[in-house]
């Protein structure tokens, strides 16, 4: 969910070793609870400022879904002392965007380094207090409804993800998508709810500020103290979400839609980002489908020609999320045949050990991707911020070793636990003839 369409940053895979250089950063905590992180990158004339709030659609009331994302839009409607957000930033040569996920809401801007203070001024004022304007709410409600249509209702396969989440999660708020469960929830949002949401979640003690670029550590800490220091701690309540009960039997749903091709989706409950098995799980998806040399592509797309598209990926959620396999069968191949072929590949993961070559390959790929990601100061800011909200910005350095140390035995063990029939939710998405 981006604030403005058109600018999508590719998500960088988790880090790995060797070529990878440690990202050095310094971190401090202001008295009001705001964590401040600084990383120096002297190759760019720009700075990135990232403010990440620990609130996402998982924190919404089931009858008011889509609120965190709607709120992200409202964060640009003016703050207590600054009537408009964008214009002063543009005057300083800056640019910005934001996104909301199930787990967090992230705001980021870039600007020439000698105008860094404008960024602090803008971001601190909207953390201090929003303007809460009714006209802004009226308009952004409409913008978000159009976004809802553009992303989901008016897109072929646009409702896949909401359907899958609803099928796999019965209790946990991961059951609804970030854009919201239905348009009416957005239509009904009131200004009072907006205010309550702000004071419940937008607070220095519930946020992380990251600055990257050709900056001086002390200068940034001084600026942070000056602009963010006076914002009161709001004693944000710790999150207490219901745990999703263990799934005990296979779930299956079939829908008929106006799309060109039948597609099958199989979602398996997996561990959260901080669980020790997460890294092996991520590598399982890479062995299966990362790149044209991957197993599923080589065997089922290229050799047996059963699919035209076949992917395995993680939902990327912080708490226990989903491991998804999705495939479009080739013309004339039934969903039953397709499903059996997928299950056969998953069974191989459960029975045989991956070769050391295969494992080395997916680890190399992770390593290379992190090096590519390190070339950009904004990517680094976002990775530091989102990892700090998860648990610790230092994960972007230590995860390297976590991936490198995964063994073929762990891959098999994780697969055995993951790919159990009773752990699976199947969505048959049938093309209307």
């Amino acid at each position, binding site marked *: 969910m981006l604030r403005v369409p058109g600018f999508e940053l590719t998500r960088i895979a988790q880090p790995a070793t060797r070529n990878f250089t440690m990202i050095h950063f310094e971190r401090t905590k202001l008295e009001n609870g705001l964590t401040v992180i600084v990383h120096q990158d002297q190759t760019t004339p720009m700075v990135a400022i990232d403010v990440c709030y620990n609130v996402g659609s998982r924190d919404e009331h089931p009858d008011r879904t889509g609120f965190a994302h709607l709120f992200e839009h409202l964060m640009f409607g003016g703050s207590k002392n600054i009537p408009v957000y964008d214009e002063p930033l543009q005057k300083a040569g*800056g640019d910005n965007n934001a996104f909301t996920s199930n787990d967090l809401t992230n705001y980021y801007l870039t600007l020439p380094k000698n105008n860094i203070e404008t960024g602090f*001024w803008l971001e601190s004022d909207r953390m201090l207090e929003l303007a809460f304007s009714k006209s802004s709410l009226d308009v952004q409600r409409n913008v978000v409804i159009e976004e809802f249509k553009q992303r989901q209702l008016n897109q*072929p396969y646009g409702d896949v993800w909401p359907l899958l989440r609803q099928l796999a999660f019965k209790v946990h708020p991961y059951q609804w998508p970030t854009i919201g469960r239905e348009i009416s929830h957005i239509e009904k949002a009131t200004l009072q709810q907006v205010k309550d949401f702000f004071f419940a979640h937008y607070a220095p003690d519930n946020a992380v500020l990251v600055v990257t670029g050709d900056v001086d550590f002390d200068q940034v800490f001084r600026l942070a103290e000056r602009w963010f220091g006076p914002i009161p701690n709001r004693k944000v309540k710790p999150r207490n979400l219901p745990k999703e009960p263990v799934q005990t039997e296979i779930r299956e749903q079939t829908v008929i839609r*106006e799309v060109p091709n039948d597609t099958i989706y199989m979602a398996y409950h997996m561990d959260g980002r901080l669980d020790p098995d997460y890294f092996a799980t991520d590598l399982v998806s890479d062995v299966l489908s990362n790149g044209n040399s991957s197993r599923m592509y080589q065997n089922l797309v290229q050799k047996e020609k059963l699919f035209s598209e076949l992917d395995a990926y993680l939902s990327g959620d912080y708490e226990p999320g989903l491991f998804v396999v999705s495939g479009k069968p080739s013309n004339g191949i039934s969903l039953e045949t397709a499903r059996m072929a997928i299950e056969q590949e998953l069974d191989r993961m459960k029975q045989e050990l991956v070769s050391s070559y295969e494992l080395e390959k997916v680890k190399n790929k992770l390593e290379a991707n992190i090096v590519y990601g390190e*070339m950009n100061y904004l990517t680094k800011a976002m990775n530091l911020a989102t990892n700090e909200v998860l648990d610790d910005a230092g994960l972007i350095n230590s995860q390297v070793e976590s991936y490198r140390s995964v063994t073929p035995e762990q891959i098999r063990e994780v697969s055995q636990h993951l790919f159990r029939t009773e752990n699976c939710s199947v969505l048959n998405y049938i093309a209307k003839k």
Partner: protein
Amino acid sequence: MLNRLIQPLVNPIEHIDMVKAEKRQLSNGIPVYYVNAGTQDVVKIDFVFEAGTWFQTSNLVASICNSMLEEGTSNFSSSEIAEKFDFYGAHLQLTVDQNQGFVNAISLGKHLPAILDVMEDLIKRSVFPEDELEVLIAKNKQKWLLENEKVRTLCQKKFTQVMFGDAHPYAINNTLEDFDRIAREDLIRFYQTHYHSGNCQIFVAGKVEEPVLRMLDVRFGENDWKQTNAKVPVYEINSSPKKFHHVEKANGLQSAIRVGKFWVTKSHPDYHALSVLTNILGGYFGSRLMTNIREEKGYTYGIGSFVLNLKQASYLVISTEVGNEYIEPTLVEIAAEMKRLQIEPISENELETVKSYLLGEFLRDFDGPFALAGSFKAINDFGLDYSFYDQALKVLRNITSEELMQLAQQYLNPEDFYTVVAGSKSI
């Protein structure tokens, strides 16, 4: 005392460090343009051939030919090629546009020799295996079907047809049946005629030191892959006499809109000034269109304008997707915003804002090796040099609202624009 009511002092952007691309030639004359910058040991290499859709004799040949390059060579099978790229964590990207065909790769410097070995083979010795071709066509058919369900695809296709005429290579007019007409021999012929040393340029960015350039010469500097260049076909633009077009797509909630006209090319004296004008109209978040149609009216998630510069033509296009009930009012507002630029001078404040924003964008366009290489290609493709950017900066810093109003009167007459709407509601 902290004053939150006043913006901290803004420093103007005075200096922009434009690291320039350097030029070399391989022994056989292939030009190599390179930017040695950045700190990571990463290299991005783009092989560019004059092999875009302009040169194809039937639909899809240019793009399928390009996609097939990684599907088998005389030394490597498609799976061996995939295996190499994946094992070394390198990314291969094969694309075509209207004029060019690209073979691009990004790799860690330490793996570059191995990656270049494979690239040499797929550029010089592709064999177009039947089996892989069949899979690729089936895959692309499904993709085509999916894309053609989207109102934005339907709208863009129609828009290019309206602007250029169905038979022009800049018009996107491929059909599902075109996939069945693809013959392997046509692809091989296209490959032989267009992917050779006499038709190639190389762009390299990242950590590009002498060994990298030497490696390129060893693999690509010989005359063993030279062919005679094909004649460049000539096409006439044949625009529709009708300004308004509608494409029917049943049951949609939103419609896609394109409003556009031919534009001046990069070498035209008005180009830079017009670029400021079109940014004010729809080129950034604070633009007139975004402010009015999204931020004040809420008709859309996004609306913007951009200029597409192709070798033989440039056009300006405004593009958006709106709820069906907002089509009419959106079109009215787009025209009103053009009119407003023609009759009302842009305020000092707005002009300052857009100038600063665009200067910031300038900095971004010259930040890092890949951006630097991109900025070079954007002039090199049009036979321009870096004075283009000096001139752009000069115009940007000095332009006045009077000049912009005059340009709007000359270039932004709503009645000159083509409008295409794709969606379920006929209007």
